[in-house]
């Protein structure tokens, strides 16, 4: 099994183009101004490919994958089904 990863965004770099939310609606929604709201949870194995694609296609290079399971302090969208992995 691969190590758990989660999404992170550099909001200074982000321009709100919204491509990431189109590519990965399971984990990324947009706020009222078009900036990404990330699910704080660990990226499920089935979505790893899409997540990598979203990171690579971000026109501002603002999205990244970080090592670590879904952590405290990150925003977990209400209603996002939790599949958090035990470490």
């Amino acid at each position, binding site marked *: 099994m691969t190590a758990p990863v989660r999404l992170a965004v550099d909001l200074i770099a982000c321009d709100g183009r919204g491509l990431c939310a189109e590519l990965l609606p399971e984990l990324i929604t947009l706020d009222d101004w078009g*900036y990404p709201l990330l699910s704080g949870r660990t990226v499920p194995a089935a979505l790893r490919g899409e997540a990598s694609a979203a990171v690579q296609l971000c026109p501002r290079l603002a999205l990244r994958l970080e090592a670590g399971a879904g952590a405290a302090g990150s925003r977990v969208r209400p209603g996002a089904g939790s599949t958090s992995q035990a470490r």
Partner: protein
Amino acid sequence: MSRLLPGDYADRTLARHLARHGNRPSCAGTRRRDELIAEVERAGLTGRGGAGFPTAVKLRALAAAWPVPMVIANGVEGEPASDKDKVLLAVAPHLVLDGAVGAAELTGAREVVMVVHHAVREIVDHAVAERRTAGTDPVPVRVMTAADTFIAGEASAVVHWVERGVAAPTGRPPRLGPRPALVQNVETLAHLALIRRHGAVWFRSAGSPGEPGSMLITMAGAVRRPGVYEIETGTPVGGLIELAGGAAAPLGALLIGGYFGTWAEAAAALPLPFSSAGLAPVGARPGAGVIAVLPRTACGLAETARITRYLARSSAGQCGPCVFGLDAIAAQLERLAGDGACDLTLVHRWLGQVRGACRHPDGTALMVASALRVFGAEADLHARGWCSEARP
């Protein structure tokens, strides 16, 4: 309580400082360094810039860092309601410098940068020149005037300012090129200087056991003698208002902790100890020690709208949700303060969405959320075309 602030306002000169506090004991040497950081830990000193982070944890992390860090004394104090760092630097600059140089020895740093508000720049320059002439310090000390903006005091913004002259947060851990930076509030450094002289037991002999020591506070608004005071942590809020000469008008609400603080009804807050644990019942924290007193005759919603607009304008302008979110929230609050025609559901939704690379949007959202709790009845009045400020 007068540990940091001399009663007579005359410790500006090195001679007076030495007469009062004696020579600065060295903190150099690897073995002694570990013992002294353990002493700071026993003292229970926490950051006095607002975040309240344990100072010993920071010192230990930076002492182990490579390359050796540099020390940045944060005297920016961009918060308009706060004056305590300016007053401290104006009346006891050498105590802060002792602490900054001591922190450099404790972490192995080879340079200290004092970033200070322009109002006290000359005083700090003079103090540094005196010390250079006397040859008191083992590391060079440089002084910089802070950028005159609200956001300039945020830790990563201070480092950014020192490195590139840009007073905007970076969202990354404080670092100057390859060098990690110990960014420490000037009041914290002054306490550090006194702990080195008198020890942890002495430090803990004042204040509440959980959050010991003294702290500087700024009393603003409807008190008879607004200004900066040194208090023991855990002093009841009502006692702080007495210290500032008492209320200048019947009390309505208090903004505790500054612009990123929490609104609380005065009656609920007055008996509470001024500490994180003590203020928990009203959801407040001491923050950087500001208490702004709103009289019952003033409208809390109007004041909140004014502060929120100020904070929206103070955004560094880097992160979209902060730029657009704070402006949108401020606009709704201005309508609420006016004719009451405001969509509060939308405001609550936005309070949960604003975010960015630093805590500026989060701090603003917490203050606004507390206002909507405390001034709920006032919001109802506004919706019906009334305002308590206009009431006879």
